[in-house]
């Protein structure tokens, strides 16, 4: 039952148990679902609503607020070009125009092969490497048109697979500090549990 896989469901329950209030786990669970599917589907949002005890409308309300949560399908790589002032002065619009031309999509669209989604962003806090680009939240830059092509080629060929996981996965290492004892029993936790963090956990 439900949209999350059984492993993810178990992890979701462990995450929920970390908080005094269930709905505090809403955003972590949205990331969990996005890690599973690459984006946040309606089915996933309904599932999350059940897990945190709110309505799907509230999950969607929260999810649509945040740019990092995608409620429409996206490519395996979400390429985000910063066009805020530092990057703009360093040639960001040239990079973005080149990206649209070379990927044959406009900002907001996904390539037909499902590899790339192109986004434009305000400041990504990578001004020291302007113009900067994020791919699945990993930083690259400074980039010009050639550098962009090389990046796309590396992503497409899998040469960057170690650095850039598929979209939705924030970290390949599950951070389990603070998860309650229940997670240990499920065998998903390797590290030691922090007693202080679990002190207030109900159940």
């Amino acid at each position: 039952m439900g949209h999350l896989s059984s492993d993810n469901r178990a992890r979701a329950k462990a995450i929920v148990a970390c908080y005094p209030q269930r709905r505090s786990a809403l955003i972590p669970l949205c990331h969990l679902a996005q890690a599973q599917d690459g984006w946040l589907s309606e089915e996933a949002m309904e599932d999350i609503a059940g897990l945190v005890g709110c309505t799907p409308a509230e999950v969607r309300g929260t999810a649509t607020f945040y740019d990092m949560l995608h409620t429409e399908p996206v490519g395996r790589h979400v390429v985000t070009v910063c066009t805020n002032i530092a990057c703009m002065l360093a040639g960001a619009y040239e990079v973005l125009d080149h990206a649209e031309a070379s990927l044959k999509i406009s900002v907001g669209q996904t390539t037909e092969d499902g590899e790339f989604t192109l986004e434009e962003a305000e400041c990504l806090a990578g001004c020291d490497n302007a113009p900067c680009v994020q791919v699945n939240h990993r930083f690259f830059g400074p980039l010009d048109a050639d550098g962009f092509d090389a990046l796309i080629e590396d992503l497409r060929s899998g040469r960057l697979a170690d650095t850039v996981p598929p979209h939705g996965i924030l970290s390949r290492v599950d951070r389990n500090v603070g998860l309650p004892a229940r997670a240990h029993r499920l065998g998903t936790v390797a590290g030691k549990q922090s007693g202080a963090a679990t002190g207030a956990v109900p159940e």
Partner: protein
Amino acid sequence: MSKTASVHSLRTRFAVAEDLEAPAAVSVTVDGRVVEARKGELIIEAAERAGIFIPRFCYHPRMKSVGMCRMCLVEVSGPRGASLQPACFVEVADGQEVFTESDAARKAQEGVLEFLLLNHPLDCPVCDKGGECPLQDQAVSHGPGESRFVEEKRHWAKPIEIGPLVLLDRERCIQCARCTRFAEEVAGEPFIDFAERGDRIEVAIFPGEPFRSYFGGNTVQICPVGALTATPYRFKSRPWDLEQVETTCTTCSVGCRMVAQSSAGALVRYLGVDSEPVNQSWLCDRGRFGFEAVEAPERLNKPLVRSETRLVESTWNQALTAVADRILQTLDGSGPAAVGVIGGSRLANEDAYAWVRLVKGVIGTDNFDAQLGDGLPAELVASLPRATIEETVAAGTVIVLAGDLREELPVLHLRLRQAAANDGLRIIDCAPVATGLEQVATWLPYRPGEAAELARTLVATESGDRVVIVLGRPSLAEPPAEIAAAAAVFAAAWPSARFLSALRRANVHGAIDLGCAPGMLPGRVTLEEAGAFFGEHWGSVPGARGLDTAGMLAAAASGEIKMLVLLGADPLSDFPDRDLAVRALERVDFLVTVDTAPNPSSRLADVVLPAAGYAERGGSTTNLEGRVTRLAAKVMPPGVSRADWVIATELSDRLGAQLGFESLDGIWAEIEKLAPAHSGCTVEALAAPEAADGIVIPLKPSAVQLTRRPLRLDPIATPGIDSVSEQGAPLGAGAAMSPGVEPDVDVRADEDDFADDEFADEEGPGELEALEDEVSPEDVSVPVGNRRPGLVRFAPGDWTGSGSLPPVDESPFRLVVRRGLYNHGTLVQSAGSLAPLAGSQELRLSPQEMSQLGVAPGDEVRVSTPRGELVVAAVGDGGVPSGVALLQFNAVPAHETGASALIDCSVRVVGLDVEKVI
């Protein structure tokens, strides 16, 4: 904002806002005026009490502040000088100086309003809110007058349907979050929320999950712009064409105060009035949109008399003469016990009294029952120690032993839910199947038929400290005696426990109080105790206790009762045991119905008398607390329909007995004079502005705490009331009970007369302290030595139930039958907008048993009891325990077989067999 991070509890806030007598803790200066305020009070509230209006959109007195719209920015002095602060979010502090109209405040307010209008379409000429719109009004009073925004405004598809009765226009929305806060905080049904952000923000439902709330209409009422509109009112009227009266909703027995608004002689809208002790401005959708039933084309408008095989239109004279002749004939041939009257809870109090006097005093039969076998014994309801709604939500523990309150008494559900969710009220919900209170209450499931056993367990484990029991019928398939027995267990174990009746019919409590029940006479007294007293005043009373509805139907079916009068009752649809109702109505020699609209029972009648309906007659009504409030007439009854008391009076004339009733006030004066429970609750007291929220009877000897409404209601809280009152008819505290008739001041109880009455010490007539000046005692015409009888007293020993546990079940399931808000009853079905909301019939079983039976959701099953069988779709429901099956009452049109075909009202447990239809 999170649920627990409330700035302050709602309840505390209202106590603060209301309790003006208490010493002020804080003194602030608003626009140079010194204002005394309580610590914790918001600037916007303190200023309003001082008569200084600060503009606002998102602030609503019944919800938590969010500081969302910024319209209430004012200059507030602080340690670092004056700064702009939202008045709805900042609490008063001693010595604080507030400037609401300084240059800086004015500029800020104008700036906010200019921003709010950036994307607003300014389509006021085609907007329902035009003329009663806070945005419109405050754009004029606090806006810059001109916009500098020349760019394209945002566009959306509009309107979109977010719920069955509510439409959303996102272009008009100013994101004040009133609707979303209502949905979450008040209704607990957050099916709408903001989606997206910035300039793309919108109120949205989840795809495929509409705002299916019983309370959705409230979001329309409180929307400060035209973003939310209700389908039944769209494009119906302009506020300056509306007239309104304040009245009480009689859709159920909660008795919500509201205004009824009409245009061109037709009702077009109801809006909830902020009545502190009852509905706090909210209404349910069934009540709110029920005006459509009053305006329904199928309303009866002429008397009908059966000629050969069909009913033909007739005159009042012919119809009343036919009824009177038949009554005399029946009395001659078979005596008064051969006449029975079923119904009365549709009636106003005055109507009920007139009928009781006719039936019990003139015809002389005690066969009169306002309940249709779906309630509780009248003596029990009249005698239980009562609690008000206020006392219930302030109790230590509330035990609910009733049907699903969300379905039956929606606004009581709202009050309980809010108290539990926001103020931590502890609720124990005793129900065979989970109810709408599930999320905020502890659910104690009990096996149908074993309510008294559960009560015994509870009294053994609970302390019983400050307990209020909400008592109704958890299942129509469980006999009332079992619930009465459970009530007796609670009352015997916890002498301080109090009860709030959850009988749901409109004025059933008024009807019971006035004697529309076997063995009862007006004023919560028994026939046994008060027979002599009323005999003296009325001339005669029945010699023996009569039958309840089940008894009357059985007697009619066996031929002992020859004549039945249905007073706004439809036993074929509403009596739980349909088989018995059919046999009775088919067998009875003469059937009279007095009703507002035709129904399945009236089609079998020999004479049909058309009665004036809701908002077509005045009078008063009594809610489940015993609170008497006044009804107001706003529109004319259709055709030649008459008020029920007029029908009773005319009929009595034809029987040769003058009741002498000439006005509603005259009838109430007689009630006040004779009925012990109503003593002291005079016409004048009810009409006083302080009694706008009603008077709870019987009056207590101590001072009666009447709610004082604020002089001016927050005009933005419920925009539709204040603007109509300013532009059209002014809204008095209550409308006239009977326009043009001066209150009869001759009959009034003199307190001295009751000074040595055995009853006066305890629960006898008290006085309305607030009204002391207005109510001057005068001589009373009650004969000396003929003291009023005492109220019926509660004796737990009288209600024992069947005692032992039911025998081992022969069937795998026990049947539970509950009512839903939207059903196939006449009211819902004649309100065009509500009719489609009545769901289809389904059998609810636990998901485990569904799979054990090999039944997939939606599969048809054949269910059977010893009484009957029907084929119905089965649905799995986690709220149904194993061994129990739930059906909704009246879930199908009357000509189809529904749950009432399965119920045998004489057995404790209705066993049910379920088999898959192959």
